C-alpha cells in the first residue's frame, strides 16, 4: 500500500505534508498533516485528542527535528508532563533542550471582568513569542474552546478565532487544534470546523457489548487523497498506533518454499515437505483433540529452525501451555529464554476485535516472526459475530501473507452446526485445513486426523490416527477393515490378530519348507545313486571297448609281423613284389 502511495505522490506533486510520526496515521493521510496549515482533531472526552496532538509534537521534536509549541487551555504543564511520562516521553528534558515549549493559558471566569472592546492580541503575542523563542514548526492548541467558557463576548471571540487561524497560516506552522465533540452531528461544540477547513480528524471511543474500541476517521482533507474508513487505534505504552487495514488487493508475493509442521508423519501427508511458507493453516477439531499440541509442535519446529514465532493464546496462559507441552516432550521454555518464541496471552474480552488486530499487527511488526500461531480463533466469537471475526481474520491473513509469515489457527468445533459455521467462515480463507476429530468406537474415544484441503500440493486423502504420547505426537495409519475404521485398542487388537496370523503363517510355511527340503534330500540321494550306477555301467562298457581295441591292435601287429617274416625281404621287395 505504501508503495502505491509513493507512486501516486511522484506522479502528482500534491500539497506538502508534515509527517506526524504516529504509527499508521501517516499512511492513512498519505504523508501526514497539511504542512503549514491548521488541522482540527475532534472527539468526545477521553478519546485521545490531547495525547494525539502531544504525540504529534513530541515525535516532531524527536524524529523530525521540528520544535513545537503546546498551548494548553485545559491542563497545566506539570499535569501534561506527568501524563506523557507514562508513555516514555520526557517533556521536561525536551523543554530544557528547547524542542518543546508548553504554555498553559489559564482562563478563570471568576477572575475576569469584561468591559468594552478587546481582542485576543495577547494570545497571539504569547503564541508568537513561544514560536519564535524555539523556532517552532508545529503548534498545538489544546481545546481552544475553553476560551468560550471564559469569555462572554462571542462576536469578538469568533472574529478573533478566524484571525488566529489565518495568523497561524501566515506563520507557516503546522497546527493541531483540538475540539470537543458537540451535540448531534456537530463535530465541535463551537463550530470550530467552520474555521479549520483544511483537515479534520475525528476520534471516536465507542463501547459495544461492554467492549470499547477507539476509532479514527479523516472527515476531510482538502487537496489530498486520504483513507476514508474508520480505523481502529490503540493507545498503549508507546503512544498511539493506527492500523490502516484496507488493502485487500490480492497481489501478494508467493513463496514455494516449504516449512515443516513439526510432525514428520504430517509432513508426509503433505507431500513429504510440509506447508508452504507464508500460507495459512487451520487446525480444527472438537475439544481435547490436541489442537494446541499441534500448534505447539509447529511453533517448536519453527524455533528449532531459528525462526521467530509469536504465539497468541486466547484460552490458556503461557505458563500453562509450557507446562502442558512438557508432558508431551516439547520444551517451549528454552525458546522463550532465547527470545525466539513469544507468547501473547489475552482474554478475547480484553478489547474489541479491531483492537486485537491492532495489537497483533503491532507485535508482529515489532518482533518480525516467521511463524504466528493463534490459539484458538473461535474464542474471538465472544467479542464479535462470525462475520466480524471472519472480516478480521481476512485482514490478518492478508497482512501476514504480505509479510510472508506462516500462520496457524486453531478452531474449536463445538457441535456440528457451529462446526460448519466457524469452519466455513475461515476455511475459504486458509490454504491448508487439517481436521482432528474424535472417532468413537468400541467404547473408547480416539483421535483421527485428515487433511481437508491443502492448496497447491499433493496431499494424502487418508485418515490417520493421531496419537499423543509422552514422547510426542505421531500419526499412525488406521485400519480400514470390513468392520470399518479401527482405532485405538481395536486397532491394537487387529494388529495383534494379524501378528498371530503371521506367526501361524510363518509356522505353516516353515513346515512346508522342511517337507520339501526332505523330499529334495531323498530325491537328491536317489539321483546320486542312479548316477553312480550309471557311472559304473559306463565304466564296464569302456573296459570292454578298451579290451576289444587292445586285442584288435595286437592281432593286427601280430599279423603284420607274421607277414613280414614270411616274405623275409625288405620293404622294397615287398613293395616291388606287390607291383
Amino acid at each position: 500500500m505504501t508503495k502505491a502511495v509513493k507512486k501516486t505522490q511522484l506522479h502528482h506533486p500534491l500539497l506538502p505534508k508534515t509527517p506526524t510520526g504516529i504509527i499508521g496515521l501517516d499512511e492513512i493521510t498519505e504523508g501526514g498533516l497539511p504542512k503549514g496549515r491548521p488541522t482540527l482533531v475532534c472527539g468526545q472526552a477521553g478519546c485521545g485528542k490531547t495525547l494525539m496532538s502531544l504525540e504529534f509534537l513530541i515525535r516532531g521534536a524527536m524524529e523530525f527535528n521540528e520544535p513545537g509549541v503546546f498551548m494548553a487551555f485545559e491542563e497545566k504543564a506539570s499535569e501534561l508532563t506527568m501524563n506523557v511520562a507514562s508513555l516514555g516521553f520526557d517533556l521536561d528534558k525536551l523543554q530544557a533542550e528547547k524542542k518543546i515549549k508548553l504554555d498553559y493559558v489559564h482562563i478563570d471566569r471568576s477572575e475576569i471582568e469584561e468591559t468594552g472592546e478587546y481582542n485576543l492580541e495577547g494570545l497571539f503575542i504569547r503564541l508568537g513569542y513561544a514560536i519564535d523563542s524555539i523556532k517552532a514548526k508545529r503548534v498545538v492548541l489544546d481545546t481552544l474552546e475553553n476560551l468560550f467558557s471564559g469569555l462572554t463576548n462571542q462576536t469578538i471571540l469568533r472574529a478573533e478565532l478566524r484571525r488566529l487561524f489565518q495568523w497561524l497560516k501566515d506563520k507557516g506552522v503546522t497546527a493541531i487544534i483540538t475540539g470537543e465533540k458537540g451535540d448531534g452531528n456537530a463535530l465541535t461544540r463551537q463550530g470550530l470546523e467552520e474555521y479549520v477547513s483544511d483537515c479534520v480528524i475525528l476520534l471516536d471511543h465507542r463501547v459495544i457489548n461492554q467492549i470499547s474500541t477507539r476509532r479514527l476517521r479523516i472527515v476531510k482533507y482538502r487537496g489530498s487523497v486520504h483513507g476514508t474508513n474508520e480505523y481502529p487505534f490503540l493507545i498503549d505504552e508507546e503512544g498511539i498506533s493506527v492500523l490502516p487495514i484496507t488493502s485487500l488487493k490480492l497481489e501478494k508475493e508467493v513463496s514455494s518454499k516449504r516449512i515443516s509442521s513439526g510432525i514428520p508423519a504430517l509432513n508426509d501427508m503433505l507431500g513429504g515437505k510440509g506447508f508452504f511458507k507464508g500460507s495459512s493453516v487451520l487446525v480444527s477439531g472438537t475439544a481435547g483433540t490436541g489442537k494446541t499440541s499441534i500448534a505447539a509442535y509447529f511453533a517448536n519446529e519453527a524455533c528449532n529452525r531459528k525462526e521467530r514465532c509469536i504465539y497468541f493464546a486466547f484460552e490458556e496462559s503461557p505458563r500453562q501451555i509450557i507446562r502442558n507441552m512438557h508432558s508431551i516432550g516439547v520444551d517451549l521454555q528454552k525458546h522463550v529464554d532465547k527470545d525466539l518464541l513469544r507468547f501473547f496471552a489475552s482474554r478475547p474480552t480484553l478489547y474489541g476485535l479491531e483492537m486485537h488486530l491492532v495489537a497483533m499487527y503491532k507485535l508482529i511488526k515489532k518482533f518480525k516472526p516467521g511463524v504466528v500461531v493463534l490459539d484458538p480463533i473461535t474464542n474471538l466469537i465472544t467479542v464479535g459475530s462470525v462475520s466480524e471475526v471472519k472480516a478480521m481474520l481476512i485482514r490478518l491473513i492478508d497482512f501476514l501473507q504480505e509479510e510472508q509469515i506462516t500462520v496457524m489457527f486453531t478452531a474449536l468445533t463445538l457441535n456440528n452446526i457451529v462446526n460448519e459455521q466457524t469452519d466455513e467462515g475461515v476455511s475459504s480463507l486458509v490454504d491448508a485445513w487439517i481436521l482432528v476429530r474424535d472417532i468413537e468406537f468400541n467404547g473408547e474415544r480416539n483421535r483421527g486426523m485428515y487433511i481437508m484441503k491443502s492448496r497447491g500440493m499433493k496431499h494424502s486423502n487418508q485418515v490417520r490416527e493421531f496419537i499423543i504420547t509422552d514422547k510426542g505426537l505421531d500419526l499412525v495409519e488406521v485400519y480400514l477393515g470390513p468392520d470399518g475404521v479401527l482405532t485405538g485398542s481395536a486397532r491394537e487388537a487387529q494388529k495383534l490378530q494379524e501378528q498371530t496370523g503371521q506367526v501361524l503363517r510363518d509356522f505353516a510355511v516353515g513346515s512346508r519348507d522342511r517337507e520339501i527340503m526332505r523330499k529334495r534330500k531323498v530325491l537328491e540321494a536317489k539321483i546320486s545313486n542312479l548316477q553312480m550306477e550309471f557311472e559304473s555301467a559306463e565304466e564296464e562298457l569302456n573296459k570292454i571297448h578298451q579290451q576289444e581295441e587292445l586285442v584288435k591292435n595286437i592281432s593286427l601287429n601280430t599279423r603284420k609281423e607274421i607277414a613280414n617274416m614270411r616274405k623275409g625281404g625288405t620293404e622294397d621287395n615287398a613293395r616291388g613284389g606287390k607291383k
Partner: protein
Amino acid sequence: MTKQKEPIAYELRLYIAGKTAKSVTALANLKKYCEEYLKGQYKIEVVDLLVQPQLAEGDQIFAIPTLVRKVPEPIRKIIGDLSNEEKVLVGLNIRPA
C-alpha cells in the same frame, strides 16, 4: 500633601499591544477613574507586549487590553477598553457590587 504619607493601596498594570485605539482609550479611561476615586493611592504600570512579549505568560494575558490589579490581592483582571465605568469600579473592588 497627604499623598506621600498614604500607602499605595492599588497597584495596577495595564497590558497593551502597541498604541492602538483600544489601548489608548483604555489607558485614558483608567487614568480618569483612578484620579477620580483613588487619587494618590494608586500606581499604574503600562506593559507593551509588543516590546516585552515574554511578560504575557506571567500574568496569564490573552486578551488586549487587560488591566490587572496586582495589589490588593486577590488578583483581578478586567479586559476590554474599560469603557463601562461601573464594571471597572466593581471589578477593581473600589465600589462594592
